[in-house]
């Protein structure tokens, strides 16, 4: 048993492994063990699809957080609007911004405690759990490629864009999509064009 403050030391010792960790789909799972997550983000929260941001030549990863909860039926998990957004420097994974969306209130009509949809949505409902996990891992690895390409200034081929768009289309939760679109309008309009309003 060790006191909570000792966790910071452990996180520092793991910094050297972050380079490899962020290359894998384990990045989002890894976030849950960071001190800032445990300080600011509810433990019960879902980690949303990342949104890339490039500013002043640097690349950042923005991660929305939303609520979810199983309901009375198997296969019917309630989804709640994103309530927080954290921006990390992609190169170092150091957090540079935390936004409490319930405070910032971009959606005045939203009742935060009420579900806005369910998981699984139609395009994944018939998938096996293993298939879904594989598709999720594939999309997160495509995200890694996207961030690396942005960092290196590489171009995105049509074929790559199609792959990313297809994967995102399948996995994006329709009930959360309008919220994502608010948080990253140009990004999601670019990769989910068929759903552009």
């Amino acid at each position, binding site marked *: 048993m060790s006191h909570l403050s000792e966790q910071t030391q452990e996180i520092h010792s793991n910094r050297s492994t972050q380079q490899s960790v962020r290359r894998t789909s384990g990045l989002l799972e890894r976030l849950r063990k960071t001190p800032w997550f445990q300080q600011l983000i509810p*433990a019960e929260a879902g980690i949303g699809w990342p949104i890339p941001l490039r500013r002043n030549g640097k690349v950042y990863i923005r991660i929305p957080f939303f609520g979810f909860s199983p309901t009375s039926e198997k296969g019917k998990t309630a989804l709640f609007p994103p309530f927080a957004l954290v921006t990390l420097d992609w190169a170092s994974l150091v957090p540079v911004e935390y936004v409490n969306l319930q405070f910032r209130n971009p959606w005045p009509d939203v009742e935060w405690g009420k579900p806005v949809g369910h998981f699984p949505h139609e395009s994944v409902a018939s998938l096996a759990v293993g298939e879904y996990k594989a598709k999720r891992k594939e999309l997160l690895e495509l995200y890694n490629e996207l961030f690396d390409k942005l960092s290196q200034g590489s171009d995105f081929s049509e074929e790559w864009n199609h792959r990313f768009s297809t994967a995102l289309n399948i996995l994006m939760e329709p009930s959360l999509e309008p919220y994502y679109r608010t948080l990253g309008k140009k990004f999601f309009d670019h990769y989910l064009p068929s759903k552009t309003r």
Partner: protein
Amino acid sequence: MNELFDQFDEFEDDLWGPIADDAMEPVADLSVGSAYQAPVEWNGIFTSPSEENNAYLPDVEPMDQTDLSSIQSLDSGELQPENMAESFFIEYPVFDPENADLEQIVGDPAQDMENWHMQSTQSSCALVSQEFILDKVLGRDVTEEELTSVATDAGWYTPGGGTPMNEMGRILEHFECQVDYDINCTMDDLSAKLEQGESILVALDSDEIWNTGADLDDILSEYFGMPGQDANHAVQVIGIDYSDQGSPKVILNDPGSPDGSGVMIPADKFMDAWEDSNHFMVSSGASQVSDQMIGNYYDRYGTWYYDDGTPERYNWDTGYY
């Protein structure tokens, strides 16, 4: 520089906009047809600001004008405990004090099970787990609503989200309980705390105890939760059953499951689920506050609590407390 990069560069300015210098500026008209309101109202917990008072509040411009009118909030009744009764999350046995070998039990699960009830909202597991402990320590029925109010007020609880791990014992502190926060804990640590009569709250991956029979071939429509999220969930540890030395069982009060009172989880399963929070544990001994102090007192932050335990709040309409 390709076009996509330029889009990302523009994205930031489009998204946030500048913070308004003049709070008296008219608020922007959103496409959904309602004026922006300062975020001081959550789920009716706070009183709504009048327009006059709004003018004195620091205001920010809306992030975007996305039309969310097509989104309908769903009926949250499906999350109510009475509607959960037919479901089953956990397929493990429940502690039965009449048939248990009490010599082999650490803790007092029979007594703690009396304080169990199911959480009434999707995200209140940490609040309700602390409520179980307070019911025991204070000797009165503390309500989930009361704790939700206290925790929301203090910023420890996010409606529709939940409770950050580091805030999971704050309500106990609020009621003057002695609280320890530890990570990298072991079964021995749990046993030691229980033997000392302390109450324990842990955070664990609910997927690993709720989807006990699931495998990768099951379709998603047979699954509780969202695969791959590995979100944590707060439960109270109320005992350990060592009657089978080869396979001890950890006894939980799980507020998130209709079958969660005294549910017995094999220790190896429990340790796997617990690992996701770095084996995080909140432990609490007796409270320094008596039942008589629940109402009519100031807490350490200077907030007055009425005799029903509710805190006083500022009324934006009247300008009075």
